[in-house]
């Protein structure tokens, strides 16, 4: 996530230079927060978190918690077992990745090519907000 952070900071400095109203900066700041702060809930049961982040391998785009297929139930039980054996979150995930491949995790991991999955939305947002700023400035002056 460090790359995103740098880019957002760059965006902020750039915006400051243009002396846009502070509201605009707040927006950028909020984006920054949303990139850093994990949306997932750390207080929740590890098991419940995991079943929302692991896909059911046979049910066309459903995560484990959405699926009632037998294999999903099996996998849920495996998660419980692994947690009892003392696996942490990453270890459980890696256990499933080793068996089913990368696509068993419900989101692209922030590494390698998959960075684009996150980079493009963030850049798109910053870029469109900058265009918004420029456009209104131009309108005000013209």
């Amino acid at each position, binding site marked *: 996530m460090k790359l995103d952070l740098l880019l957002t900071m760059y965006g902020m400095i750039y915006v400051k230079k243009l002396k846009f109203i502070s509201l605009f900066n707040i927006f950028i700041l909020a984006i920054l927060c949303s990139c850093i702060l994990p949306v997932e809930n750390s*207080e929740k049961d590890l098991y419940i978190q995991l079943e929302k982040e692991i896909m059911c391998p046979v049910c066309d785009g459903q995560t484990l918690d959405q699926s009632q297929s037998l294999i999903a139930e099996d996998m849920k039980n495996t998660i419980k077992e692994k947690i009892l054996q003392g696996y942490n979150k990453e270890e459980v995930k890696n256990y499933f990745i080793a068996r089913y491949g990368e*696509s068993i995790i419900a989101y*692209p991991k922030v590494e390698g090519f998959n960075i684009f999955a996150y980079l493009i939305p963030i850049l*798109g947002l910053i870029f469109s907000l900058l265009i918004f700023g420029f456009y209104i400035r131009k309108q005000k002056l*013209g």
Partner: protein
Amino acid sequence: MNNFGFYIMILGLILSLHSSLFFFLGQIKNKKVFIISAQKSFYLVILMVIISSFSLIYSFLTNDFANVYVANHSSLDMNRALTLVAFYSGNEGSLLYILLVHVILSGIMYKFAPNNIKNKLNFSCSILAVITSFYLFVMIFFANPFQISEFIPNDGKGINPLLRHPGMYIHPPLLMSGLASISIPFVLCQGSLFDNSNSNQWHTILRVWCLFSWAVLGTGLLIGAWWAYTILGWGGYWGWDPIENVGLMPWLVLTALIHSIMVEERRGIFRLWNIILISLTFVLALLGTFINRGGPVVSVHSFAASTLGFLFLIFMIVMTFYSVISIIYNYKNLTNNENKIESYLSREASLLLNNILLVVSSLIILWGVIFPVVSILFNDTEISVSAPYFDKTAGPIFLFIIILMGIGPILSWRKTTKKAVIIRLLPSIIITTLIGLYLYISGIKEFFPFVSFISIFFVMTIIIREWIGGTKSRMSNSYNPIPSFINMIVSNRGRNGGYVVHIAILALAFGVVGTKFYDERLDVNISVSEEIEFKGYSILFKETTQEFIGENSITKAHFEISKVSNPNKINNITAMHSYYPNYNQISVRSGISSTPVEDLYIIPKDFIDENNMTIRVAINPLAWWIWLSGPILILGTLITLWPNKMKRN
């Protein structure tokens, strides 16, 4: 009867090709005769499509299993009331259904268009007829709902068990209607390009049709969520499945559009932007149809999947190309206006920002939907993009949109001084700070839900303040606040209807934040007359019963639940589990006890034997508010759309 329906479709295709060609020629060569003839076949096509739809319904009602489609989607023991569901429950029938909606809406639009607009609609109708022809062409050559088989089975396969739910009468039809109806505002916009008078009637008719599509699509999505919540039995309502996403994307862009049309109406700017938005909505709707009919991404909504994806892809590309060309061609016309945005603190600027955020969120969702394909193409690895990704990328933007929803409407057109804004916001800021303190003390300390709740209350207090102010200023002639309030609402339907819709969105957000961050789950084995306690509830497993309907078996588990603090108030809930041998499919219906504070939700996971079972108990806080938002949303739209008699006179 099957051949009859098929021939009628061929006749319809000929008529609609004729109408599209002659509307076009009539427009170019300016010949009245051409147009009159095109109009006639335009209306006749509607009749043809209605007749062939009825002929399919007739086949269903008479159990005509010689028809392959009927044999695959109904059976002798099927409840006749489900015929209408069976009608659209497969690929071929749903195409016919979409076409039916398309031609009827086209007809209504053309029939009721004001006269001076009607003259400019030749080109629009030509596009509508092209769309009609496309659907008829696909059905005649690739997906014939009147296909006859040599072998006539004794009984049909039966309707998909997941579709046997009251929500199914409304959810797919509304969603398909919503997506189909987007072509109407699209062609209206194309029509307005031929009219340089820039009359306000265009804005009115466009706004009405956009709102119509928006409300239909929105209600369809909400009812789909409700269906998932009550029947799919996983405790959630929105899975960020590709098909759900392709319904949400055009809805988000339409939301942007119904806001920016106001700016065009009021200030004459944003014309180009609006055309871009409507074209984007239209293309996204076509993309939705493409992905639904056998696109490259996997989805649970596979009931209409087929190998026809390529046809819809071609159609989508042609239409995208056409929209781009038409925007470039009219570029000069669209950008010449003298009005400008004068300040950041103006309604125009806030609406533009709202537009940008809505479009960006929609495109981010699109990126997530296609990213698995991108990853396979460019990185050669299979990955999944599901709920956690969308929560993280689109979620924060939705929060900004909600905050903007509060601030935007209190800014005036052209410009507002900072002081005026602060004065108008002050009461809300004070109340929200107090609410925030209360929330913090009562234990809501995580950043994202805390900020979300505060923003929701902030926007709500702003709306209430506006309404109290409006009512007070009308109180001078009567002392009763209720008539003054109604009077105030009616006096500016557009604005107040909008506020009502905003309240619906707040209720929705309230429920989403509650369920997303504070849900609790417990998997437990339970046996008859055992009682368990979970988060202040005591749950008593009374018994299981079993029923047979035809070959299908239904197992019901009955529970008595009560609050530990109030053991005398007992609530009975039943969770069901049905098995459909013909489909080799199970369907689960959860037991739900719902209150505005939280839902207790029991999912039957496994019936071990008569006396023992595994259940998942879930607490979904504030889920009730999500379902409340539906009726409010419809009410708000109706207030906005209700014809204004005063103005007409």
